[in-house]
């Protein structure tokens, strides 16, 4: 789960990371008031959960309160990559001498927490990783010790920082790690971490939370910004479904994440365009299948649906019941191709006999048939 910059900033500050003075504003007048309190120039930053805000015009410098108000007026309500800006962070502007990058994340191959630093801050670290990987210095946390002070110095000196920064850098790195552990984050990042008047300051903060750990962090779950969720994905999450919205016109209902991805791939392979990723999960009941179908068809772009079920724990008859139940309530009818295999598949076939569905034996056949339906139409 992503959280906003202003939320990440507060978490880091609580863990001892120095951040510039700043406040959130939801109206131009508030932005003006914040700028007055801060004094001097300020930066007005759109608070949206998408990358590349700066390039898209969501981050602007204001010389004082009047300009802050004017800029906030322009940014608030702006559409940034499909998201409407509802909040800005108004932060004191500082005189940046150098921009660095510092982040902690999980190294899957090493099965360890890794801290990455780079003297090339302010740009996307993935870009640096691609073009100049040797400019990224890495140190790995020990699962018992976390990061020791010497790890921080290895990183700092590796990044070319002078010894005078070692102590501040150590505190910041410890802050990042502690914030990561305290929130079960999968990424805690400062980009840029800047040098201002011989001191380090975290100008922009980003935290990604581990969805699997949210059950033990009710306070963090509460930070979720429902405004920014895709409405289909939000509806699916409320039904306990693993759903990702895509741009195509063929809805997919599948059990299992790997098979769901493979089903999308096969649809594409035969010239179709999947409208979504959907894993109904192991042992799904009729109700969740029906809910899934409703969510998929609430997107007017969807013109056909493909069911691909390989029943292991999942019972095909439950899926069939869900399809029949949903069909009765649907406002619009689209062609549906069904491929059910495994546990209770014969019972499922009986249930579906009366429904007007196109059946298929293999997933390839199912994909071909659903694509063919659209070409006919």
């Amino acid at each position, binding site marked *: 789960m992503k959280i906003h910059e202003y939320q990440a900033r507060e978490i880091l500050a609580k863990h001892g990371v120095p951040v510039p003075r700043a406040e959130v504003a939801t109206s131009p007048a508030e932005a003006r008031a914040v700028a007055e309190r801060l004094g001097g120039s300020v930066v007005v930053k759109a608070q949206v959960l998408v990358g590349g805000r700066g390039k898209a015009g969501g981050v602007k410098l204001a010389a004082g309160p009047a300009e802050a108000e004017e800029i906030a007026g322009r940014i608030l309500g702006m559409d940034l990559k499909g998201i409407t800006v509802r909040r800005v962070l108004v932060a004191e502007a500082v005189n940046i001498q150098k921009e660095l990058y510092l982040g902690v994340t999980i190294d899957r191959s090493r099965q360890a927490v890794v801290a990455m630093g780079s003297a090339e801050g302010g740009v996307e670290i993935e870009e640096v990783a691609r073009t100049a990987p040797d400019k990224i210095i890495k140190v790995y946390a020990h699962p018992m010790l976390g990061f020791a002070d010497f790890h921080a110095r290895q990183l700092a000196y590796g990044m070319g920082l002078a010894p005078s920064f070692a102590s501040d850098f150590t505190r910041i790195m410890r802050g990042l790690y502690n914030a990561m552990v305290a929130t079960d984050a999968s990424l805690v990042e400062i980009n840029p971490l800047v040098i201002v008047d011989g001191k380090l300051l975290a100008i922009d903060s980003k935290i990604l939370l581990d969805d699997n750990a949210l059950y033990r962090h009710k306070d963090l779950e509460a930070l979720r910004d429902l405004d920014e969720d895709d409405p289909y994905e939000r509806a699916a999450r409320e039904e306990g479904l693993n759903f990702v919205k895509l741009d195509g016109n063929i809805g997919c209902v599948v059990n299992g994440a790997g098979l769901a991805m493979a089903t999308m791939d096969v649809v594409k392979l035969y010239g179709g365009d999947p409208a979504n990723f959907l894993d109904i999960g192991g042992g799904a009941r009729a109700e969740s299948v029906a809910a899934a179908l409703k969510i998929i068809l609430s997107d007017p772009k969807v013109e056909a649906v493909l069911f691909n079920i390989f029943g292991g724990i999942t019972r095909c008859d439950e899926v069939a019941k869900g399809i029949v139940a949903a069909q009765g309530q649907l406002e619009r009818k689209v062609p549906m191709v069904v491929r059910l295999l*495994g546990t209770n598949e014969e019972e499922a076939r009986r249930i579906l006999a009366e429904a007007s569905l196109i059946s298929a034996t293999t997933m390839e056949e199912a994909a071909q048939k659903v694509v063919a339906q659209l070409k006919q139409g």
Partner: protein
Amino acid sequence: MSILIDNDTRLVVQGITGREGEFHARQMIAYGTKVVAGTNPVKGGQTVAGVPVFNMVKQAVAETGANTSIIYVPAFAAVDAILEAVDAGIKLVVCIAEGIPTLDMIEVVRFVKENGARLIGPNCPGLMTPGQCKVGIMPGHIAKPGKVGLVSRSGTLTYEVVKALSDLDLGQSTCVGIGGDPIIGTNFIDVLEMFQADPETEAIVMIGEIGGSDEEQAAEYIKKHVTKPMAGFIAGQTAPEGKRMGHAGAIISGGTGTAKEKIAAMTAAGVRMAESPPRVGAVMAEMLKG
């Protein structure tokens, strides 16, 4: 022969008193797996599916000689269950649960390694040596005994491929679902090494998906160490960047972990990549013919 599990496997089912635990205990017993014990932290003394239930894995090991464990407890209790099994001396622990926090898994895999044990999963369908032993939730009837080893990050996708192989009479030595989480106990390379060393495994199928770089690393390993014919498939060619595709580990981030890279790496390592899961069977059949 086979890898990891066979007729000598003596299984303890952790969480046997739960709905899933009991259901799959019965399925495994029906398949022929020697399920010797079950555990529940507070319900010791019962009998479930004809199997004695203990409070502690230690007791189960002492009294039944269990050497393998399968865990059917919810994610929030799964970490403790893995640790308990390893502490009790179990050398092969299989964890089905999906949803274990990643930072917890870093500690778990460390503990497992310290103790010389092996963990399969979490977030995996378990494993199966057709005709001998099934540990997990794979549907037994789709598999046939044979000489193709299969390793996969995914569950139902594995079934799809197993069925495709069996339909073409390509039986399997062992099918291993390693799980879809970012941090897992056993990775592709571990299983490839075992298949390469297993004299009765003559060919290998590897099913990957987007996210991480396990497939790329496996490709490096294959290039150097695997001499047996290999077919493969990577799921998620149409997956968008930055979105978790169901599995916690299946996410393309910062442009890395794409299916394209993985397919290229595996192809370069000599693995014949199929265009769809069912085609894996045909590809493998061709390789074994020619």
